[in-house]
């Protein structure tokens, strides 16, 4: 019985949000969220994601302001000059592996660039674009 409890606890820990994920796992959960908020959801588009990445969305900054015109290149914070590791998973395997980090940075950067939260559709489109970029 005790082993069963330990086993269940271990399984719960593994399936918790702290578990390292792959970019495809994020794509799956963005799709589920998108479907929930829009029944007409018809998948993600790398082309739309690319437009999103370069658009200023009516403000001063785009994603590319800090992440440069190439998501596989190292970027630089547009205000402080601090180096930023590449955003594309092909160039930086750490990207899109931690749900906490993904949530934190989408919250911050969407507020900075769009002055609002990003929709699941936008996040999925952007990730679809990033996954097409190669070093």
């Amino acid at each position: 019985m005790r082993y069963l409890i330990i086993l269940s606890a271990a399984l719960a820990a593994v399936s918790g949000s702290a578990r390292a994920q792959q970019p495809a796992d994020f794509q799956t959960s963005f799709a589920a969220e998108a479907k929930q908020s829009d029944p007409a959801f018809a998948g993600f588009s790398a082309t739309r994601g690319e437009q999103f990445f370069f658009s200023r969305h009516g403000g001063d900054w785009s994603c590319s302001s800090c992440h440069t015109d190439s998501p596989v290149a190292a970027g630089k914070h547009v205000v402080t000059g601090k180096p930023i590791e590449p955003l594309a998973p092909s160039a930086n395997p750490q990207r899109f592996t931690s749900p906490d980090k993904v949530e934190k940075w989408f919250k911050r950067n969407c507020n900075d660039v769009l002055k609002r939260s990003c929709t699941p559709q936008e996040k999925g489109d952007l990730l679809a674009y990033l996954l097409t970029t190669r070093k």
Partner: protein
Amino acid sequence: MKSLFLATAIAAGLSLTSLGALADQKAFPLTDPAYVQECGSCHVPYPPQLLPAPSWLAVMSGLDQHFGVDASLDRPAQEAILDYLVRNAGRREASVAGKPLLRITETRWFQHEHDELSARVWGLAAVKSPANCGACHTAADKGDYAERSLRVPRAGGTP
């Protein structure tokens, strides 16, 4: 009893000496990995000693509007980092009209330390902003501001 007074006097003398040494301190060990990771991802993790506690409190209570960008943290991380900053905060008063200063660069101490630098240096592309400590203090990411790691970039140098 007399020896107790003596011990207190010596202790007071020692702490005065260490306060004096702080004024010339050039290395500030960054002992909280969460602080370095969270705050150091957008800028140099500034030494907590360079602002007093009221300033850190004010900075940390406005992270969603942090010098023009959203630097918000989840609550546990924000509270833990604030605790670290306050525990290691400086003692030098830094306020204007009763309001705590939010920028290290606005403190009298910072301005005194950098008063020999010309506007040309601040304007270099490699420097960009006085908040970019690492442009000259090449070990600033480790909290080390000693002269031996100080390299002022030359004009025209690549950033």
